[in-house]
């Protein structure tokens, strides 16, 4: 087997060893149902409380403002639909952006069918929204503004604090999908004025299938999952106990190492970006040059399809992605790349390499050795490239 390099941390991460260890007892000896009256249940409940505190502390919230969910998509669905339904008598307008995660966009599309009006704000060539655009979009009927913290495909980090302030001034609820940001960027919901925030454990070395929605005290939210009295009757279903414990441990670890880790990973990303831009002509970096996630690199290689590039990299053991993991089953041109103004044919040629804890200098060197010849070979097959070369 040849070398394997994982550069798809934005899709998911492995589970940190300490996190896994913290989780294991909850599959065996600590198996009680936290809702049960007896000791078996109570001892587990205590650990869930602790996990809730860990999550709250990491983002500057109160424990009672954290609700565990089955991941980021559920948190997004709940935030959008929950605010929309809770404020139906106040208004039916929601402001969001064109580059949100499908979990959010599809929730909005669903609400459109229910009679809500959604404004999807455009972004500039770097994937940035304009706070002025947000302000201009606000109407008397606006009940929610939702802007993703950092984009999963191109890594651009939005001016969250300014949007939150604007929303607060206008007395509109503000939600941010921070699934990609938590663990990579220091977030404090109180200081930044965030009302709701979605996060997901498997993006920061926690387990899959567990996440959380932070809901500021005093924000009215309609339930999404109906049933039993778990999560203070806000989110039914027997708790994914081990997952919740893992989430708590993972977010605590991530917060404690955030500065040091981000710096190291940023260094690797910068090296990769510089190397690729130097070695491969007709290449552009997607996303904002400075305001971006430390581990995100996203490129468009003109004249070739991302799909072919991705598969060739996979054959060489390099795991990247074209568009986001969620849409790569279909490999349609990414809505994010189209939103930053890339023409259809270039949006097809994108590659995202997202770096994380396990990556090393050697990994970056390997990619810089393997990638350029593949791009070159695919370009030799491309009639478009022939034309450009011939035209010179």
């Amino acid at each position: 087997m040849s070398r394997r390099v994982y550069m798809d941390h934005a899709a998911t991460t492995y589970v940190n060893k300490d996190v896994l260890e913290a989780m294991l007892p909850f599959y065996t000896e600590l198996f009680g149902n936290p809702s049960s009256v007896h000791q078996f249940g109570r001892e587990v409940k205590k650990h869930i409380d602790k996990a809730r505190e860990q999550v709250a502390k990491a983002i500057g919230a109160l424990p009672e403002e954290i609700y565990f969910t089955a991941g980021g998509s559920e948190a997004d669905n709940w935030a959008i639909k929950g605010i929309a339904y809770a404020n139906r008598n106040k208004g039916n307008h929601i402001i969001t952006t064109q580059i949100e995660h499908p979990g959010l966009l599809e929730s909005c599309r669903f609400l459109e069918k229910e009679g809500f009006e959604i404004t999807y704000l455009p972004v500039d060539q770097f994937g940035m929204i304009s706070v002025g655009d947000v302000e201009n979009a606000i109407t008397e009927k606006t009940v929610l503004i939702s802007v993703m913290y950092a984009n999963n495909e191109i890594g651009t980090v939005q001016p969250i604090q300014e949007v939150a302030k604007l929303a607060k001034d206008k007395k509109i609820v503000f939600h941010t999908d921070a699934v990609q940001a938590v663990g990579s960027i220091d977030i404090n919901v109180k200081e930044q004025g965030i009302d709701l925030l979605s996060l997901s454990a498997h993006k920061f070395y926690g387990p899959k299938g567990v996440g959380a929605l932070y809901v500021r005290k005093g924000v009215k939210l309609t339930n999404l999952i109906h049933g039993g009295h778990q999560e203070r009757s806000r989110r039914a279903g027997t708790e994914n106990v081990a997952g919740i414990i893992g989430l708590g441990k993972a977010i605590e670890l991530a917060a404690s190492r955030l500065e040091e880790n981000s710096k190291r990973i940023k260094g690797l990303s910068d090296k990769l970006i510089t190397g690729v831009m130097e070695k491969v002509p007709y290449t552009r970096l997607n996303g904002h040059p400075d305001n971006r996630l430390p581990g995100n690199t996203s490129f468009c290689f003109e004249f070739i399809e991302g799909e072919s590039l991705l598969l060739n990299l996979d054959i060489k053991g390099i795991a990247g992605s074209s568009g986001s993991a969620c849409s790569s089953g279909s490999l349609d041109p990414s809505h994010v790349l189209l939103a930053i103004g890339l023409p259809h044919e270039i949006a097809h040629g994108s590659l995202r390499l997202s770096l994380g804890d396990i990556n090393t200098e050697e990994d970056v060197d390997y990619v810089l050795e393997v990638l350029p010849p593949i791009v070159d070979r695919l370009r030799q097959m491309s009639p478009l490239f022939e034309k450009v070369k011939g035209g010179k």
Partner: protein
Amino acid sequence: MKKRVVIGMSGGVDSSVAAYLLQKQGYEVIGVFMKIWQDERDDYVENEGGCCSLSASEDARRVCDKLGMPFYVLNFKEVFKKKVIDYFVEEYFYGRTPNPCIACNKYIKFDALLEKAKALEAEYVATGHYARISYDEKFKRYTLKKSDAMAKDQTYVLYNLSQEQLKHTLMPLGEYSSKDQIREIARELGLVVANKPDSQEICFVTDNDYGRFLTEKQGESIKPGFFVDTKGNRLGTHKGIVHYTVGQRKGLGIAFGKPMFVVEIIPESNIVVLGDETEVFHKELIASEVNLILYEKLDSPIKVTAKIRHTAKAEAAEVIPLSDGRIRVVFENPQRAITPGQAVVFYDGDYVVGGGTIDRM
């Protein structure tokens, strides 16, 4: 180093076994599910046998896992829409009866997929078709021959392949003499798809209701018109020409007191011509867009057997080249329902000589 093959996996038993056979022959095999089409209705119901549903791609993936092969889903939706679906719809509005499988083979499986295969440094694309490809020293050409499994022979939908395409294509099932053998291999391997029924309908019209499909795509262009007899007398009103095909008897919506058949569709005047059964038979046809496999070109008439649809028997005929590149085909005996838009394919024994698209009787 092993030669690399990219195989198109439909999730059915044929392509699954074909993948296995290639692996056994020593190729490095990469499985690809071609995402070509998506039902846009929300209330989609999974059906068995359809070839582009989620369950089909899941089946293909599971087979590849079982065989230890890499598996990728690749997107061909755009080119499929342009070259197959749009063509399919247009042809009906021209009063013709298209064959989307032939278009798909020509433009998608052996063109777009072959391109992808080359991008992956593969020497070949492979499919689970029942047909045989080989290089023939006598003809100095790549040839296409009927499968030993006569009941499953699929050469009719493959006549359009070029020499370059044939050179880079493998069809390992062609050597087998029945589908049962293929199912048996699948069962021995424990493949989940061993007992899956054969797909019947056109993959993007899963309910087989072409009228419904065409109405959804372009309903505004469907206009009622007149049924007439072969002398031009009006017999009644039809629902729009796209609802009819030459040779059709059922579903005309009018009782005539005797069996009546569609003998011709005239799009210019929006007319469907009906006649009795004898009027559905013709001895001659003109075909265009001719592709030849066995020869480079045709200078003089040749004797062949010819098929005018996938399910028809090959019948004795003479192929006469015309000066404009088209061909005239004269059958020894009259053929039932020669249908514009369908292909006519010629054979010399087991060899596919070539074929073309039927323009008119």
